[in-house]
């Protein structure tokens, strides 16, 4: 029996280095072992998944099938893995809207680099694509740490703002048609143009040109226009944001680690993702050592006592915090292992535990 019911999408978030990727992979392995068809996606440009699963960076953007026997030689099931490539996602959108040449824009290409700035927005599109294809029972999502995770959460908001109607007027002014205008629309847009000129868009673009140089402004306008032409793809991701909040649709796992000193960072991620979490969201405490040290009772005031206290400090604080804010908590014991496949295997066994608190 799966102790934590699986959902169409399961999101692992948390600060850097807590073991999000390792735990996400162990969850994927566990769900696969229970007979589900699983895809694990990492949208973190650091791509830890690449090392854990021994994937090829060159294959970023392409689904790769993982044989679970790399973790446990006695089993024969498989699951799929994907390293996010914003460029691949953008290309797919380009093909769909017949805009391949437009998407060849130098600015779009730079922005679609892993650290170029569009990673989070493209990730939402990628996820939406796989959810709609309905190939998988569960998609396990490994997210980037900190600020980039927040960028992911608010990506659809940004998309929405970007395609805001008032913003469209700039292109009408610039005579860059987004779609064939009916005479009536053309008439209306003329009115709008005169309005905009009054409100100073011409001035605004001249400022931009002054700061960035003329060639940039030209490329930039073309980039924005081509994104606009494919706006249906971008806007279709808005429903994804709504779905994320639904309890039947998503499992949220806030990953923390007992070897890290920062509870306030986890707290800040928690705060920002609050509107997405629901009643059955989970906090995971990775690298717990208290069970390992259960039978050790150094004398009070001895140096060993002080050592034990200092080593357990973070774990105990995390538990306290977990009790206050979550109804479900799972502790994962620290695994001392050189190779991450061994860690993933060991951790996947711990998923059959019942959550506590």
């Amino acid at each position, binding site marked *: 029996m799966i102790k934590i019911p699986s959902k169409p999408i399961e999101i692992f978030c948390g*600060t*850097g*280095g*807590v073991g999000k990727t*390792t735990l996400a992979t162990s969850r994927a392995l566990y769900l696969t072992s229970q007979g589900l068809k699983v895809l694990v996606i990492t949208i973190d*440009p*650091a791509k*830890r998944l690449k*090392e854990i699963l021994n994937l090829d960076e060159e294959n970023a953007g392409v689904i790769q099938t993982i044989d679970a026997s790399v973790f446990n030689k006695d089993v024969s099931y498989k699951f799929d893995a994907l390293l996010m490539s914003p460029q691949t996602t953008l290309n797919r959108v380009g093909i769909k809207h017949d805009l391949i040449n437009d998407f060849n824009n*130098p*600015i779009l290409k*730079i*922005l679609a680099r892993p*650290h*170029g*700035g*569009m990673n989070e*927005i493209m990730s939402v599109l990628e996820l939406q694509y796989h959810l709609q294809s309905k190939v998988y029972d569960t998609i396990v999502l490994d997210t*980037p*740490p*900190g*600020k*980039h995770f927040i960028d992911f959460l608010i990506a659809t908001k*940004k998309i929405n*703002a*970007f395609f*805001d109607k008032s*913003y469209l007027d700039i292109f009408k002014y610039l005579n860059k048609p987004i779609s064939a205008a009916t005479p009536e629309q053309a008439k209306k847009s003329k009115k709008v143009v005169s309005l905009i000129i009054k409100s100073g*868009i011409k001035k*605004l673009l001249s*400022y931009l040109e*002054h*700061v*960035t*140089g*003329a060639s*940039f402004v030209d*490329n930039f306008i073309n980039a924005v226009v081509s994104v606009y032409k494919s706006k249906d793809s971008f806007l279709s991701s808005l429903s994804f944001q709504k779905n994320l909040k639904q309890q039947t649709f998503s499992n949220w796992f806030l990953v923390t680690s007992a*070897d*890290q*000193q*920062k509870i*306030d*960072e986890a707290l800040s991620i928690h705060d920002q993702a609050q509107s997405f979490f629901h009643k059955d969201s989970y906090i995971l405490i990775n690298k717990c*050592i208290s069970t390992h*040290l259960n039978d*050790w009772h*150094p004398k009070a005031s001895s*140096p*060993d006592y*002080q*050592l034990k*206290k*200092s*080593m357990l400090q973070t774990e105990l604080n995390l538990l306290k915090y977990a009790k206050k804010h979550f109804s479900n908590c799972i502790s994962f014991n*620290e695994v*001392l292992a*050189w*190779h*991450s496949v061994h860690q993933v295997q060991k951790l996947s066994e711990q998923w059959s535990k019942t959550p506590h608190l």
Partner: protein
Amino acid sequence: MKDHTSNFSSQEATHFNDLSRLYFVTGKGGVGKTTLSLALTRYLKSCGLKAHYICFTSRGDHKLSKDLKISYQQLDIAESVMAYIADKLGSKLIASWILKTPFFKSIFDMVPGVSDMILLGDIVDKLMKDPELIIVLDSPSSGHTIAMLESPHNFKEMFGKDGILTNDIKKMHKSLYSANFFKGIVCTLPTPLAIHEGMEVKNFLQSHNFVDIDLVLNNSLVNTSNLKMETLPSFLKEKIKFEQEIQAKYSKQISQILPHSIYMSKKKIICELEEKMEKLV
């Protein structure tokens, strides 16, 4: 810097001529960046230098800095961006107007690297204006750091040869890449994955021509003082043995090892670390 080294022998004074101007402390979240940054700032100050601690975002601990007698500065992205644009256009009013338009707002939203780059430029400016100043930058976690240091290169490519921004980026790079200016300190923990990640950040920085980068291993149980192996439980013995193997394997890549501290108070931990900072300076 000459005026500040009067307490030291001439040999030490020469040593200080090689000091970096910007100590960029990075690494994954929770590896001890803030602790290390504060300890380093205190060490530099104890040498009589004008060292400032600057913190990104809201991670900073104002009270702790005060307890440690370190002046605390938090960077505000919105303010930096506004000041920069106002400076370029010669008007605060136009700058605030521009930043309020949906057009520019969404540019800054869709391309967050622009603001990061302006912020970095602001820090470099501070250092150019005051030749005695040393800044210890408690940087954002490594992924964000990479984006921040990569964005000027991306934008230089995007903006082409002309324009104020390209020229400003060139100017900023000229300072950032001048001798003894930038020093990267990548903080990490004693697990194979964490070290691997730390080395990746180090390689990234070096591939972007930041040559002076130290990898620092924090929270090492092996180096905790007064440990008596025979009284420890078997799990800890195993853990220490594992950490020893890790240290041996990566000894060439690791510049400095900082011990796990048995103190509970942050202030005490930082003061303990302060004594181990000389090697990083």
